[in-house]
């Protein structure tokens, strides 16, 4: 199943601030995470911190509060006319245990403390509740996620 991203209002703010100010997104230094939320409430575009209006999956049974840190990032940028940065991460995975857990939203955010004013970056909606059975050790594997930014200047 392929899901399209939803942007938070703070996403562009994070990109505009960059890393120099310590309050924006710095792909190669910040701690970026993928958290999970239930279907209880819908994440709002105005949310700036995780989970915001979302309802995070309870700790335990295979999920750890805050989600998983995204690792193995490779990024590149190049060109002087078009500035582009792409970050690709190792697939975040979860394995349910005990009572298992249910989720609906995947939230990509910057957990670096200094980025708290514009922490949230993207969220994806599974479209319905996904329940992982702990008894069977069900697993969830997210793939294909990456984050592209492109900036350019125009004369008008």
């Amino acid at each position, binding site marked *: *199943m*392929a899901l*399209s991203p939803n942007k938070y209002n703070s996403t562009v703010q994070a990109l505009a601030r960059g890393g120099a100010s310590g309050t924006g997104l710095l792909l190669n230094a910040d701690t970026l995470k993928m958290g999970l939320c239930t279907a209880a409430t819908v994440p709002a575009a105005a949310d700036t911190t995780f989970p915001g209006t979302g309802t995070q999956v309870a700790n335990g049974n295979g999920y750890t509060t805050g989600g998983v840190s995204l690792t193995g990032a490779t990024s590149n940028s190049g060109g002087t006319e078009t500035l582009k940065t792409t970050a690709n991460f190792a697939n975040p995975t979860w394995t349910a245990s005990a009572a298992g857990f249910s989720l609906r939203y995947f939230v990509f955010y910057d957990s670096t403390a200094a980025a708290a004013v514009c922490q949230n970056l993207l969220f994806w909606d599974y479209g319905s509740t996904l329940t992982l059975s702990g008894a069977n050790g069900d697993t969830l*594997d997210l793939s294909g996620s990456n984050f592209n930014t*492109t900036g350019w200047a125009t004369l008008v």
Partner: protein
Amino acid sequence: MKIAQSTDCEGCGQRIGNEDFLLATDGISGKVVAFHKRCNPADPDLQRHYSVSLTPAQFATTLNWGR
């Protein structure tokens, strides 16, 4: 996970690929086999693997001046 995705479904014979799948142990040979979730094997106690692909987000910043 990657190994299962490169094996064939015991139900339809097609490659598992990047789809939700289930694992089961053959009661006779003891070999672990994989099924597509859509192939719907009857045993409800199978371990399920959900594969979700998150499409990338594109952002652009335009700077205007001289207006």
